[in-house]
């Protein structure tokens, strides 16, 4: 009878652990994982997978590759979490890994222009993407205009120089502070501000003709 009761309690215990992990901040989740709680890692994955995916996707412009790189980020986090300096923010560390992987990917592509061209064409010609930018109640010409505008915006981001794009995405998409961006990109604060200013101006210049 007791064993049956225990079996019934086990899933409840699991769900309560997950709930407790969900209520914790990143630092506490990291501590729990290092203390042997394997489920804490799933919690970290759940928290960061979408954010990191979007960050890398907007940086390199290739969805499939972005997913591969996010996986690589988590593998590296898993392997090296015991060496992570817990006086710092976990998110900054995770984004730093992601940023370095994205930079490496762009560097590899620049060495192989064919791969870059294929990736860009694949993304541009992909008509299966969901029309999240559109309102389905709009007229077809409006929908077309909005889809076109979304493509223009995506292309405009891709046109920014790599180091400007990095800072731009971290600030505008991920809402990181200047200090965090400086840490992630390994630049000083002045450089971050200057790059952000230039990136915003360049982006506005590219997009401006399509906005009216």
């Amino acid at each position: 009878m007791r064993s049956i009761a225990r079996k019934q309690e086990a899933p409840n215990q699991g769900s309560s652990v997950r709930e407790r992990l969900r209520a914790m901040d990143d630092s506490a989740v990291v501590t729990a994982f290092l203390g042997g709680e394997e489920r804490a890692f799933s919690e970290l994955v759940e928290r960061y997978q979408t954010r990191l995916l979007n960050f890398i996707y907007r940086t390199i412009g290739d969805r499939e590759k972005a997913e591969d790189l996010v996986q690589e980020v988590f593998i590296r986090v898993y392997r090296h979490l015991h060496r992570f300096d817990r006086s710092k923010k976990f998110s900054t560390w995770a984004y730093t890994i992601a940023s370095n992987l994205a930079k490496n990917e762009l560097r590899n592509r620049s060495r192989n222009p064919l791969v870059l061209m294929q990736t860009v064409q694949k993304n541009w010609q992909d008509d299966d993407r969901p029309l999240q930018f559109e309102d389905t109640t709009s007229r077809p010409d409006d929908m077309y205009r909005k889809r076109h505008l979304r493509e223009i915006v995506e292309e405009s981001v891709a046109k920014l120089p790599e180091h400007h794009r990095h800072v731009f995405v971290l600030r505008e998409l991920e809402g990181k502070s200047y200090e965090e961006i400086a840490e992630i990109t390994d630049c000083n604060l002045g450089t971050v501000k200057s790059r952000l200013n230039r990136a915003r101006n360049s982006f506005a210049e590219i997009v401006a003709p399509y906005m009216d």
Partner: protein
Amino acid sequence: MLRPTWTKGYKIREPVPIKWVLVPGPLPLHMDCREFQENHFAFIDDTLSGIELVGMQRHIAECENCAKHDVTVRRSLLLFRNLPRIEPSAQFSERLNDRLRALRESETSSAFHHSGKFAAAVAVASVVMLGYIGSSLRDVDTPRDIVFPPVVANTPELEAVPLTMPAPALVASAAAGLPIWTAALYAERQPLHFVTADLQLAGSH
């Protein structure tokens, strides 16, 4: 003039009179376009100080080009921020879990491999140590003849005491009236002493 305020019988603290603070340097009445552009990122992020913010707002009101630029940047950023966010694919978690499992297994096997190597090293060291101890013990148990250096025995030469100096034992015995056996012993050995004393005297002459 400031007067105390009364509310339902409670006295409220007198309001502090305003103190005018002089800001060092001129007020940013006229900001040029270059300065506006340099501070524009902070203006958008709303991280400017009050005085700088007033300066930027005043410049926008005066400069049509900068005002247009400000609107363009803000609208473009809004477009970017509203881009649809992508979600991980359905296979993402499964793939990640597979990779993590493989990683865990490889770590475990490598740890086992390392521990196996360590165990083998410990075993070899133990065997060597035991062999050494065993051989040492065997050496200890084996009866061995103790070899001492050869001893050369010879008769000590007799001390030659001159006749003129009586032996202190005899003198002490006589004065203190002690039993005579020491004197008897001395008398027994006396002829030998006499001969030695004669020989020494002959030698000196």
